[in-house]
Every structure is written in structure tokens, then in C-alpha cells.
């Protein structure tokens, strides 16, 4: 395997995302595996930000600390990142070379040439510096310039003039820029893959599931998903409602669910906190609603555009009183798609709120995955009665399996009373009978056991590798861990997927490994606590990272090595 690591750095708003996205797409089209991620400031313009793109002919799922090519769009980028660039690497810049890695590009000359040719002002072309840098990279990696131009044309499909100018810039760059070294990559073999992130994967999964109602209040990094849905709402019949706050968002989703629509909301920590009261209501009223929880660095507003998995225990125990919920965590974009799809089945089958845990790094890192297989998708709406007539109907009837048939307005004689107060079978709240209370608590909480019995193992956990030592983790570190255990085959990897109810029986059986470590992106190693509480597993080391950046392959390998001697290993790579 040979990999190439590109970093595009510069002020936010200067188009660095355009450069990295285009490069990613070009390489994916050429059959490479691509993994990209963004480090942005919580600001709109100006602050230093950067994107990474890693490319390889073999499957990769994490980023590397090594930078082979740095596109530095301002001098700050050089100061901040030059030490990360490999000794044989390239630094693409307008400025004076400091060492042999520097490739000085004549931005202005190229732009001027194109401006002259097309009879434009230089100022009109100044935004195209990114395109030049991209073309230089293309030349270094020996990409046919047509591959780049094709993607540019697609990007600007609606503005062909812009496409033409950008492509002229590519031509000009290829023709006048001299490169004295190059990087050669083995031929790509992975064709037909999508370049996608989890925000898109979730949105598409929801559409497949028949989502009809999505309410949201804008928040990074969750709202990309809602905006994607807005783009296709008409075609797929999804009502997407931007609300006045997150309290309205969750309440509207709950009401829509109780009116018969598959309903969801997406948010991040601050918004989820505001939804907690209604989450408890959904539990009490047995409402099938799905919350997509995109974690970011907290507490409070924290670092809104940075990564963290700090909300695990919170998601599991949020809400006053005790009620059943399901908490699942996909670990990559494919799982994000399938879990998003399945979450609606779970919600409707068991009539409870489902929380799908995602995070900033999943939402904002694009990488290649095979096209989703839709052939096995199956929708199950549980005991839902959408039409016709019923008799002797009671919304919260006691049944053998603890799940009551569910009507919606319009069903004749199916009138329900939904209540967040403790209620009788008919939904009324006035007896406050202590024995009914016990039965109703048993009915609701009993679902947890049923779920553990019903769910297939792959919804509960996945297992990889054959080492004697075990990594246990959840969510997005998956990619880095899978890449790392190729290098450290003495580790196996247990990916916990069902976080609540906790599959204690299954997980306990892993307590036989020589050494067990957790890998998580939070301060205290919350999964470690959960394993202790639920499975009696006392991990020997907790590898954590909480500086707002995702885990790089190399630091994880190092962290695994350190974990032999340390109870807590803090990863710090930025």
C-alpha cells in the first residue's frame, strides 16, 4: 500500500474546501480510496483552517499525521504546518522557498495569462488561486488534467462560464508550472465508490426509511443533514420544518409521529439538552421518534466545529424519571446509512424514542464507500393502524408482548388519549392507582429486555481481528482502529453498537482477553464506566482524545503501545 496525504490550508472562506473536495472527487473517480477531513474554526471567514485528504490504492479509514503535499494559501499556513510536511514532501506556495520541499507557484502570472486570453480583469480571477494549487498537485501526482477538468465542469454545471475559466486555469498551470520531482501512486482499482459523509448517509437512509417529517433548528454539525433533506424534500415527500427552537423541533416531531408520520429530528449537544424534557415525554407516551445526535466538543457551546464523543452517558440517562429508549452508534458512513434506516423500524416496533449517536468527524469527513445495498432494506412499522375502524380501543392496552396497537387520527373509533402523566390503559390520568403505576412501569421498562432478546448480534456489536488483546470502542474511532490493528495485529477490536439497552450477556463474554483497552474521544473514557457498570469489565487502560481533533492513525498506534503501562493515555495530535 502506498498512500498520499494532502493538506489544504488557508483562511476560512478562501475556498480551501473547494480544492480538497475536488481533489477527493478526482481521486475517487480514478479508483482510489479517499479519506478526507476538515478542521474549521467556528467563524465564517478569515480564521486559519485546513482540510486533509488521504488517498491510497488500498482501503484506508483514517487520516495520517504525515503530510506529503501542503497547499499553503497564506503565510500563516506555512508557519503552522511546514513541520508536519515530510522531508520528501511538497509545499505549494506563492512565497519564497525556504527549503527543497517548496514549490513556488506563479499564481499571478497564470491568472494574468488566462485573464488576457479571455479578456477579463485579473481581479475577477483572483478567487481561482485554489484551482491553480489543485492543478499543481495534479501535476505532482501525474493526474491527467482532463480528470480534474471534468469534475470542475460538473461542480459548476450551472455556471459554465466559471467552469470554463477554471479549466483554462488548469490548462495554463499544467503548461507553465515546472515540477522537478513527482509522486507516483499505484493505479487505483476501487471504482464506483461514493464519496460521502455521514450527514448525507443519514439523510439518504432516512429517505429510504420513508421519513415524512423532519424538524430541526440550525446547529453545527447537525444541520447539514437537514439542508440535504430540504434539497430533495419535494421529490421524496419529506416535510422539513425549521422551527423556532429545539423544544419546538422535538415536540413537533413527536406530534407528527403520533399523527402517523415517520418523524425525526437532528441536533447537536446544546440542542439535545433542550430536548430532554420532551424525550422523557416520548418515553412516557410510547412515541416512536428518532433523534440524530451529532456530537461536537462541549461542554456548553464548547468548540462548535470540533470533534468529540463526550455525550454518551448523557444520551443514555437524559430525561427525568425512568423510561425505555434505544441508543445506537454507527461507526462509519455505511453503518450510518443502515442504522438511520433501521432506527425507524426500531422506534415503531417498540414504540419508543431512538437516539442515533453521530459526531462532527462523521458529519464532516468525506470518504469513499461502496454504494449502499438497498436490496435487503425492509420497513416494519410495528403495530400501527393507519386506516379503517377499530373497536374497544385503548392506546396503552396491556398485551402479551408489552406493545399496544397504535392508531392515528382518522381511524374510526380509534380515539386515543396520549398523556405524559402516568395513565391507565385508556390514557386517562385520574386514578393515580399505585398498582396500575407498577404495571405501566413494567410494561414500558419491559421493552428493554424484549429488545435485547430480539436484536441480531450485528446490531449489538461487531468484532474484528484475532489478537489476544482487545480494544473496545464505539462510534467514529472505528476507522482509525481498523487501520491501527493492521499494524498491531495483537489487538482484536470489539465495536459496541447498541449502547442502550446494554447487551450485557454478549459483552461479558469478552472479558477473557489478556488486556482490554478502550478508545474514545472524550475526557473521562465514558465507555470504560459503562463497561464496568454493565459487564463488570475493568479495562486496563483508557485511551482518550479530547482536544477537538479526530484520531490520527500514528498516534493511535503509539497510544496502544503506551497503554501497556498507563491506565489512561491522552492522545494530543492536532
Amino acid at each position: 500500500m502506498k498512500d498520499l496525504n494532502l493538506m489544504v490550508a488557508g483562511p476560512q472562506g478562501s475556498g480551501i474546501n473547494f480544492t480538497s473536495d475536488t481533489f477527493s472527487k478526482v481521486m475517487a473517480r480514478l479508483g482510489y480510496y479517499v479519506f478526507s477531513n476538515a478542521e474549521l474554526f467556528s467563524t465564517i471567514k478569515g480564521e486559519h483552517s485546513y482540510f486533509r485528504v488521504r488517498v491510497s490504492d488500498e482501503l484506508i479509514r483514517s487520516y495520517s499525521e504525515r503530510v506529503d503535499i501542503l497547499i499553503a494559501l497564506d503565510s500563516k499556513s506555512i508557519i503552522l504546518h511546514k513541520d508536519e510536511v515530510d522531508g520528501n514532501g511538497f509545499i505549494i506556495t506563492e512565497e519564497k522557498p525556504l527549503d527543497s520541499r517548496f514549490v513556488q507557484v506563479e499564481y499571478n502570472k497564470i491568472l494574468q495569462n488566462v485573464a488576457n486570453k479571455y479578456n477579463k480583469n485579473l481581479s475577477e480571477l483572483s478567487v481561482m488561486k485554489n484551482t491553480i494549487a489543485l492543478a499543481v498537485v495534479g501535476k505532482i501526482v501525474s493526474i491527467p488534467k482532463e480528470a480534474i477538468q471534468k469534475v470542475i465542469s460538473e461542480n459548476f454545471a450551472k455556471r459554465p462560464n466559471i467552469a470554463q475559466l477554471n479549466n483554462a486555469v488548469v490548462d495554463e498551470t499544467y503548461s507553465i508550472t515546472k515540477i522537478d520531482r513527482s509522486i507516483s501512486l499505484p493505479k487505483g482499482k476501487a471504482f464506483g465508490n461514493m464519496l460521502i459523509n455521514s450527514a448525507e448517509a443519514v439523510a439518504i437512509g432516512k429517505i429510504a426509511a420513508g421519513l415524512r417529517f423532519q424538524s430541526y433548528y440550525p446547529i453545527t454539525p447537525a444541520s447539514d443533514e437537514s439542508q440535504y433533506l430540504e434539497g430533495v424534500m419535494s421529490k421524496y415527500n419529506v416535510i422539513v420544518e425549521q422551527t423556532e427552537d429545539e423544544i419546538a423541533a422535538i415536540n413537533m416531531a413527536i406530534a407528527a409521529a403520533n399523527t402517523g408520520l415517520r418523524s425525526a429530528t437532528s441536533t447537536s449537544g446544546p440542542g439535545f439538552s433542550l430536548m430532554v424534557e420532551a424525550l422523557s415525554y416520548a418515553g412516557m407516551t410510547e412515541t416512536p421518534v428518532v433523534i440524530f445526535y451529532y456530537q461536537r466538543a462541549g461542554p456548553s457551546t464548547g468548540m462548535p466545529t470540533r470533534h468529540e464523543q463526550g455525550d454518551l452517558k448523557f444520551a443514555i440517562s437524559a430525561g427525568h424519571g425512568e423510561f425505555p429508549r434505544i441508543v445506537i452508534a454507527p461507526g462509519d458512513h455505511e453503518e450510518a446509512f443502515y442504522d438511520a434506516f433501521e432506527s425507524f423500524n426500531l422506534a415503531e416496533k417498540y414504540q419508543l424514542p431512538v437516539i442515533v449517536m453521530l459526531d462532527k468527524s462523521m458529519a464532516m469527513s468525506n470518504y469513499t464507500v461502496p454504494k449502499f445495498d438497498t436490496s435487503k432494506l425492509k420497513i416494519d412499522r410495528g403495530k400501527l393502524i393507519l386506516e379503517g375502524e377499530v373497536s374497544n380501543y385503548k392506546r396503552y392496552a396491556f398485551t402479551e408482548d408489552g406493545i399496544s396497537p397504535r392508531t392515528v387520527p382518522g381511524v374510526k373509533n380509534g380515539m386515543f388519549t396520549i398523556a405524559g402523566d402516568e395513565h391507565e390503559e385508556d390514557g386517562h390520568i385520574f386514578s393515580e392507582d399505585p398498582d396500575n403505576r407498577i404495571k405501566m412501569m413494567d410494561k414500558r421498562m419491559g421493552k428493554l429486555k424484549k429488545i435485547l432478546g430480539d436484536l441480531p448480534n450485528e446490531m449489538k456489536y461487531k468484532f474484528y481481528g484475532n489478537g489476544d488483546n482487545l480494544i473496545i470502542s464505539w462510534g467514529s474511532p472505528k476507522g482509525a482502529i481498523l487501520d491501527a490493528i493492521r499494524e498491531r495485529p495483537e489487538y482484536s477490536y470489539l465495536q459496541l453498537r447498541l449502547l442502550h439497552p446494554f447487551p450485557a450477556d454478549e459483552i461479558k463474554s469478552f472479558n477473557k482477553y489478556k488486556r482490554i483497552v478502550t478508545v474514545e474521544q472524550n475526557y473521562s473514557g465514558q465507555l470504560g464506566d459503562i463497561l464496568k457498570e454493565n459487564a463488570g469489565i475493568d479495562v486496563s487502560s483508557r485511551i482518550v482524545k479530547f482536544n477537538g481533533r479526530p484520531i490520527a492513525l500514528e498516534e493511535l498506534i503509539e497510544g496502544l503501545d503506551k497503554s501497556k503501562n498507563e491506565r489512561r493515555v491522552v492522545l494530543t495530535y492536532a
Partner: protein
Amino acid sequence: MPNSYRTNVEIDWCPGCGDFGILNALTLALQELKIPNEKVALTGGIGCSSKIPHYVNVYAYHTLHGRSLAQAQAIKIANPELEVIAAAGDGDALGIGTQHFVAAGRRNVDLTYLIFDNGVYGLTKGQASPTLPYGESPKSLQVENIKDPVNPIFLALASGYTFVARSYSYNIKHLKDTIIRAIKHKGLALVDVMQPCVTYNNINTKEYYDSRLYDLQKEGWDPVAKNEEEYKQKLGQAVIKSLEWGDRIPMGVFIEYEKETYDERLSKLLKNYKEKNFVTFPVHENGKPVNDITPLLEELV
């Protein structure tokens, strides 16, 4: 013919509570309009008032404190074929739920919003509600109320409600007729109901209102605006009327203006929204998703 609109649940309001009048007027209105029970959705928040969903034999949503209106809007958006009525206490509507009160004006969802306006937080034992007048201290308060009251009529006018009315729980006829008119109104309709709380509010009582409330319509106010120009002009006058609170308190309709409702606007964004009922429009066939996502996947390759 619809079934009876009353459930057989025993009512637990205090004897003499104004809430009874609202329940009566509402069920009478539904009876008169002959809407099938299963086509009506009624929401409540939390409070004495908000127990009303238990007493009306329709699809009943007893929600959270302050969230009656938020949920009601979603119900109507989810299924525009329903007749949706949101009930709320003044605490629900104008205290903890004010953000929804204002935002609802922006949507103009076609539903009826009934505020049970008693000046107190009944169910929590009589604290000041947002409509309690300044300087008053009904017997349940430890200290006098030093806040000015919200003016629900003025606030609704400012928020863009297209039908705004005041009525009175002990005037069943006026209240029933107002509710009918509100239900028939195409758009968001507010009925602020003066509702004496006999247990905690010994100021805004039946005696208080009986002598003060007068009927705007009987005194000649025509609230109907037929176009935007007229609407704007009538708004100013309606505001002036809404400020009357003293020896004379106006009741009746302050404004009535029909314009595009939210479902009409939504159908601009959703091509099938008008023709299909999204509730019964299936999402699967024998488990197989109806939506074909292939084009979306193709775009990403």
C-alpha cells in the same frame, strides 16, 4: 352523526370553575359543526385547563407544559384533513410557551387556539400567571404582582394571527359562536377566553367580568379585512381596542383576515402535498421501501 363529544371521564375541576363553560362551549360547537370525532385532534399543555383533552371524545394529545401549540401545528401539518384545536392555560400559552405563540403567527397554520385565561397558575396553586394585572395580589400570592400583564390580543395581532378574539367562559353562547367562527376561519385563530378561577383568583371573578365585558360586534366593530391594505389599517384600530381594560373590556372578534395558510404554502415546496395525505400515502410495499434512492447514490459517485 358524530358520537357524543364527551368522554365518560369524571371531571376534576373545582366546582364553579370557568373551565366547565369552555368545555361545554367547545363540545356544543363541535356538535353544531358535525365534525366526525375521529377527524378532530385536540391538544392541551399542562395545567387545570390542559386536562380538557381527557374530557372530549376526539383524538386527544395531553402534551407538555407550554407545548400544546407546537404539537398542534405539527398535527395539522402532518395531516391537513384534521380539524385541530389547541387548548392551553395562560401560563402554557404566554409564559413558558411564548416562543411558540409568536412563531405560530409566522406560519398561519389553520387551527384554533383556545387560551384559558385565568390570571393564575391554577394547577400549581395560584401563582401569578403572565396575564395577571400589575399590582394585584390574589389571595394565593405571597407578594403583589410587580410585572405588567401580557396583552394576548395585542401580542397575537403583532405576531400575525389572522383571527383574534376574546370571549368569556360564563357566556356559553358567545363563546360557542366564537369558537365556531374560529374553527371556520381558514388560518390561525386565537380565542382568549376570560376564565375565572374560583379557587385562587378572587379578583378577576365572574362579578368582575359580568359588569365589564361588552360585545365589540354589538358596538359596530367589523373585524373583517378583505385585503392586505385593509388588514394593515384595521390592525392599528384593533390594537387600540385591545388596550381597553378597565371599566369596560371588549370581547368579540378583533381581526379576521384570510390569507394563504401554511399548508398552502407548504405545497409550494412539496409537489404531492396537496393531493396525497402523507399519513396514508404508503412508505413501503410489503416492507420494500417505496422511495428509490438510487439517483441520490449516483450523484455521489
